[in-house]
């Protein structure tokens, strides 16, 4: 039997995550983003002769924390290595990285793949320093900014366990969520604090062997990771079907053209000549320290999502969305703790709160509305003080003015009209003004009830108690 002519993709990702430290990995220069070029450098990060690196404790702590959150084995003995190559953004002529003894190995994260939980293996997580930034402005020159040189990075290397661009996207998103939950990386792909390279190959489905892999670079958003992989997989499958050979190479994603292109550089074949870094002594993180770091890890998104379904009876969809960011999950839980019913609270957060935050382009941490505000609003609805429709107006006003719901209701005269005699005379007016519709309703067109409800709501600017209108309308339209 010949090989299947259905092909599958084999994808592994290398993710670089910038650690949220204040200072660089081996010196005291600031890691702040967006400052003037070359204003954050010193003899250590520019590789001046005689300068010596000293490891930032927080960088190691954050890497161990990440390893623990991703089910890795934390090495009892770890050391740095020199990766030698010449490039203008690397002032020392080598990058301090790790080679055969990384901080973390043999972990995994779980993703949702087509409704099923799938484990994506992690080969290793190691610490290294970032290089500077090159700007190619056209002409015979490039410009170099070394502010980023020496910023601490983790490189998270996955096993080739993903089979589709969707799985790769889900894996990236899961990594980002975990990194943000544990507070070690801000996950900002546009600013480059989370970067992704992919190794991708294709093979006949069911084959155990690997095809020739191509490395993809320059994908600075989740969307581009998925699109670049989609394009590259199609390209490789069609090449293989035509009997062409895949060349092992690095290709860049061109987001404007929507294609991957071979990368052309003046670099010679890589020969990094790794060797143990003599300027840094080895590391043996004490077991007690590792335990302490483990104890500082908060409840992770998967566990929290499961608990939200279990404890609050939320649908999977709600739980998934609410736990996607830790501050959002905390906002929700605070509202529930203060007395909100879980499902209504979830609806308001996913609907109105997210809408307003998105409009303003701010995160929930910067929300002008606190959970207590929502709780008060929900209690006004439950007590019949305001209608659900008016509540939306009040919610937005609370968000804009930071005033409590009750004050807004009072100020703007938004109290729900539940006074039977007041509503009754209003309804008489509405029926009187629409004799044609009233006749048709009585003739059996009962769906016209909605029309009358709408008219009453319009007359009261949405303040009428909907249950009462329904009841009164039905009574009055039946008579005669």
């Amino acid at each position: 039997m010949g090989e299947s002519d259905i092909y599958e993709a084999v994808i592994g990702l290398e993710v670089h995550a910038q650690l949220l430290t204040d200072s660089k990995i081996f010196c005291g220069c600031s890691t702040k983003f967006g400052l003037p070029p070359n204003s954050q450098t010193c003899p250590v990060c520019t590789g001046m002769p005689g300068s010596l690196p000293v490891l930032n404790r927080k960088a190691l702590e954050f890497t161990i924390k990440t390893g623990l959150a991703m089910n890795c084995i934390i090495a009892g003995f770890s050391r740095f290595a020199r990766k030698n190559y010449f490039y203008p953004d690397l002032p020392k002529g080598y990058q301090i990285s790790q080679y055969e003894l990384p901080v973390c190995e043999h972990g995994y994260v779980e993703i949702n793949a087509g409704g099923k939980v799938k484990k994506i293996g992690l080969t290793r997580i190691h610490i290294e320093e970032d290089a500077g930034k090159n700007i190619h402005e056209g002409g015979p020159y490039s410009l170099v900014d070394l502010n980023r040189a020496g910023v601490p990075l983790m490189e998270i290397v996955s096993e080739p366990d993903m089979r589709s661009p969707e799985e790769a996207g889900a894996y990236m998103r899961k990594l980002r969520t975990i990194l943000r939950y544990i507070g070690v990386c801000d996950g900002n792909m546009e600013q480059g604090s989370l970067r992704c390279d992919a190794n991708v190959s294709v093979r006949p489905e069911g084959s155990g062997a690997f095809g020739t892999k191509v490395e993809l670079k320059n994908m600075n958003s989740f969307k581009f990771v998925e699109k670049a992989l989609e394009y590259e997989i199609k390209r490789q499958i069609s090449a293989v079907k035509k009997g062409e050979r895949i060349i092992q190479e690095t290709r860049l994603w061109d987001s404007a053209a929507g294609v991957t292109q071979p990368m052309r550089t003046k670099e010679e074949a890589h020969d990094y000549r790794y060797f143990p870094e003599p300027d840094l002594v080895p590391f043996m993180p004490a077991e007690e320290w590792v335990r302490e770091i483990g104890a500082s890890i908060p409840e992770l998104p998967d566990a929290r999502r499961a608990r939200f379904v279990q404890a609050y009876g939320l649908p999977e969809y709600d739980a998934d969305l609410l736990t996607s960011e830790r501050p959002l999950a905390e906002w929700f839980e605070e509202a529930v703790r203060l007395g909100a019913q879980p499902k209504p609270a979830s609806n308001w957060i996913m609907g109105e709160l997210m809408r307003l935050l998105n409009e303003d382009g701010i995160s929930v941490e910067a929300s002008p509305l606190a959970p207590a505000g929502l709780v008060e609003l929900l209690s006004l609805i439950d007590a019949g003080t305001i209608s659900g429709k008016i509540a939306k107006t009040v919610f937005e006003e609370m968000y804009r003015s930071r005033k409590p719901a009750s004050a807004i209701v009072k100020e703007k005269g938004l109290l729900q009209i539940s006074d039977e005699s007041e509503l009754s005379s209003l309804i008489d007016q509405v029926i009187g003004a629409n004799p044609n519709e009233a006749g048709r309703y009585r003739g059996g067109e009962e769906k016209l009830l909605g029309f009358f409800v709408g008219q009453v709501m319009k007359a009261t600017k949405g303040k009428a108690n909907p249950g009462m209108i329904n009841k009164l309308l039905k009574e009055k339209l039946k008579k005669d």
Partner: protein
Amino acid sequence: MIESADVLKIAGLSRLALTEEEVKLYSNQLSAILQHIEKLKELDTRDVGPTSHVLDIRNVMREDLTAPSLPVDDALGNCPDPKGGFYRVPRIIE
């Protein structure tokens, strides 16, 4: 034995331009170093753990505190061709 081709390859990776005499000199010197390593390999090290570092110390770290950086003019002081606060270098991408 280190051949001339090996020396030229290493010199290329290290951005070094060597004369013919230098290539000869270094291939002899590097060969002598490797021969010496071969000699050392004769030693029985079955009961000796691998050395990671010549100093017998571990876990040297600093706290995550920022310190002032160099003024930009000082940082670029050795740069032959700075421009607008950047190091200007021959074009990197073809």
